[in-house]
């Protein structure tokens, strides 16, 4: 437990992490400002008429659809998670501090397991706090210009669960990126590898072999985030099953990273 606490502290003291958090906070301020300025009564009425979403309308914060406020935020959280996870682990190799730590804790399986758990936990907490900040920041637009109609208890629960699912997926993406960085011993290589896999290779694979689509990250992460049963018939997988599949991917990659770390020479990559 002590090592986990130490690794959480080490992760949260990284400049790259706080640079990403600072960028996120700036983004939240910009979104909140635009939401406030852009929420005149006439504009909101026309948006509702068109069936579009707006942050000043409370139930639009989470509709489980593409234009929900939280879903837009989730995309940026995942991007930040990829960069943050890679930077925390890759930076240890770049600075050479990995060797210093290993002269204190030579049990490598224990060290990397604690580090990955710390990264997952820290990214879950940071993602949750950032989503909370986002919702708080747009609240004035709702209270002063918009409306809360339809926001009942069921909506509040679905909103809370959505926040937690997005945080969990951010933790997963961050951990996957950290695993890749542990193997590559390089931040940039890990970011490129994760982007190439999720952004390019999975798309190509889906086109070449459509049957593989239900097994891809890009199909399953959105399913868990939206907790939508839409498309279940096509994929044959429920959101709960998609969660298990993604957790399995995370576990497999963590095992690969740990096995690699056990044998690798601790010299900078």
């Amino acid at each position: 437990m002590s090592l986990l606490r130490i690794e959480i502290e080490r992760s949260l003291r990284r400049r790259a992490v706080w640079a990403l958090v600072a960028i996120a906070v700036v983004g939240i301020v910009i979104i909140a400002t635009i939401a406030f300025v852009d929420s005149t009564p006439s504009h909101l009425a026309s948006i509702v008429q068109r069936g579009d979403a707006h942050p000043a309308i409370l139930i639009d914060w989470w509709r489980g659809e593409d234009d929900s406020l939280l879903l837009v935020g989730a995309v940026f959280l995942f991007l930040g998670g990829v960069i943050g996870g890679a930077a925390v682990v890759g930076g240890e190799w770049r600075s050479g501090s990995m060797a210093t730590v290993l002269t204190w804790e030579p049990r490598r399986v224990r060290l990397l397991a604690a580090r990955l758990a710390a990264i997952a936990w820290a990214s879950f907490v940071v993602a949750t706090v950032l989503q909370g900040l986002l919702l708080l920041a747009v609240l004035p637009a709702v209270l002063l210009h918009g409306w809360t109609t339809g926001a009942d208890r069921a909506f509040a629960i679905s909103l809370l669960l959505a926040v937690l699912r997005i945080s969990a997926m951010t933790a997963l993406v961050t951990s996957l990126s950290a695993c890749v960085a542990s193997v590559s011993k390089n931040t940039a290589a890990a970011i490129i590898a994760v982007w190439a896999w999720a952004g390019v290779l999975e798309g190509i694979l889906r086109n070449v072999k459509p049957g593989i689509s239900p097994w891809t990250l890009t199909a399953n992460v959105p399913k868990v985030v939206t907790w939508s049963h839409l498309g279940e018939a096509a994929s044959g997988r429920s959101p709960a099953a998609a969660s298990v599949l993604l957790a399995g991917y995370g576990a497999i990659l963590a095992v690969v990273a740990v096995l690699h770390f056990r044998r690798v020479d601790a010299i900078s990559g």
Partner: protein
Amino acid sequence: MANAIVIEGLHKTYRRLRGRPTVAIDGLSLEIEEGGVFGLLGPNGSGKTTTIRCLLGLVRPSAGRISVLGRPVPDGLAETLRSVGAVVESAAFLPAMTGREQIRLLAAIDGIPDRAADDALEAIGLAERAGDAVRTYSLGMRQRLALAAAILKDPALLVLDEPANGLDPAGMRDIRLLVRRLASEGRTVLLSSHLLSEVEQTCDRVAIVSRGRCLTAATVADVLAGAHPASLVRVVETDRDRAATLLGGIGALVEPAGDLLRVRGLQGQEIAATLGQAGLWPSELRPEERHLEDLFLELTA
């Protein structure tokens, strides 16, 4: 006396995706007794740092056996490293964290209290800057921070890879005194360095390595004594060539050394007798004072 470190037939080859494999250590064997300061000397690329990395389990040997404080490496590392303080090559820390934070976090791994971490910073002369981010530290200050981390465990064995790197003369003297003090407390210090004069002043025993092999290992005095002792002879300038011919004729190796002749392979009385019988009375005849640096250059050439 028991051995603190035993290395037998150590081999390490780095294999790369491109290019040929690099042999860093080629059958190195070494025994380092407990207590005192042991110097590991060698030119760049001789395998010193790789040897130290193998000792600490940072690098996996291709072949060979290592034992540190009576336990095998890497199997017994978790126990062994509780009694080993180490500075590996360049002192590496996370640049955004303060020196105090880094030392305290490392200390927490072994359950060492914050107070001990602060004491180590004080002992190493870094207390005043301990609250600053490491990125603002000079190379010498980073070395001091690494040394603070190394002494934090109250170790029985200290492994210091180029600990004087980046230090000014005063800092080097401080390190020398610290190392001697630690050794006088009964600890074993393994110190690798290319600063030969420092090693000569600091170490009790020394091993010279080159191309991954141990060329010689003994006390500093024994290493110097066994290194082809030479005599320096002064005769008048006009007799110098004749003296060289005479001494060369009875099997000595003679070469000019400034105004003097350096003679190897003969004792002082043999030189005096040979020259005296020929009427070439030397005005100066003394054993050449050898330094580790001369021997180091000679052995690793």
